[in-house]
């Protein structure tokens, strides 16, 4: 594990490799949010269609 006060050359490596993790973090965030968003879209459309079919009439 890198020590907290690295020499500059070491530090540069640490800082650059952190970029991968930062990118990964934001990627994971967006994947999760968009995936759930899409799931809700699909489930919502299905539910509404089913409601129209079975119950009839529009949603309020």
């Amino acid at each position, binding site marked *: 594990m890198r020590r907290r006060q690295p020499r500059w050359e070491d530090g540069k490596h640490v800082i650059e490799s952190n970029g991968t993790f930062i990118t990964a973090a934001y990627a994971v965030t967006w994947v999760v949010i968009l995936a759930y968003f899409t799931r809700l879209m699909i489930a919502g459309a299905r539910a509404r269609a089913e409601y129209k079919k079975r119950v009839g009439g529009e*949603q309020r």
Partner: protein
Amino acid sequence: MQTTVRSAPVSFAPPRPTSLVFGIGALAAVVATQVYAISRSPAEADMGHLQKIMYVHVPAAWMTFLAFFVVLVFSVKYMWKRDENDDLLAASAAEVGALFNGLTLMLGMLWGKPAWGVWWVWDARLTSTLVLFLIFVSYLALRAFVDDHQQRARWSAAVGAFGALNVPIVYLSVTWWRTLHQPPSSPSTLDPAYTLGLRINAVAFLLVMIYFVRKRYEIARLHRAVEHAAEAAAMGGR
């Protein structure tokens, strides 16, 4: 099947559709606040830009707690008023809460690996968040394994309320478990250079969570309305 007479009459008309515009707007807000925060915050001496993970990790954690609070409120309200819609809202909040909880954990690990060198440490906050996740999961499992709607609602309310009640106790006990032998090692978010960026990202996450919960709730209500119609038809078209 014995039904209790004490339930309040349920409105089976579904709620007003959740605005898609609001949803897209919420997503856009997240984009905007992330761009702002990432571009404005300076690099740290030790860890470079790793601090930037806080702009997603901390809001995700805050949304987890908020979701737990919503579960608590509507669980207690259900136990009081027996309005099934409150149960559906609590369940929706629990599902979204579990989502943000899982996200918090993953982001915590993605911060931890470069900062500590390992994917997992039994750090107070990470461990507590994991226990919370298990509580969410157990709540959702209960709902999956109980078929009768009223019983499911009644039991979920108790389990949800108890789980939420336990959250501060879990945090306290796990923190003591850790810190009596080691100082806390979580990242500091108190540096004023980061606060504004953090706050606006949190607001954007809040908008997304509101959209998710409302949409999920709408779907739950639609399902329930369809089921109710089927039951009524089966009982002779009342």
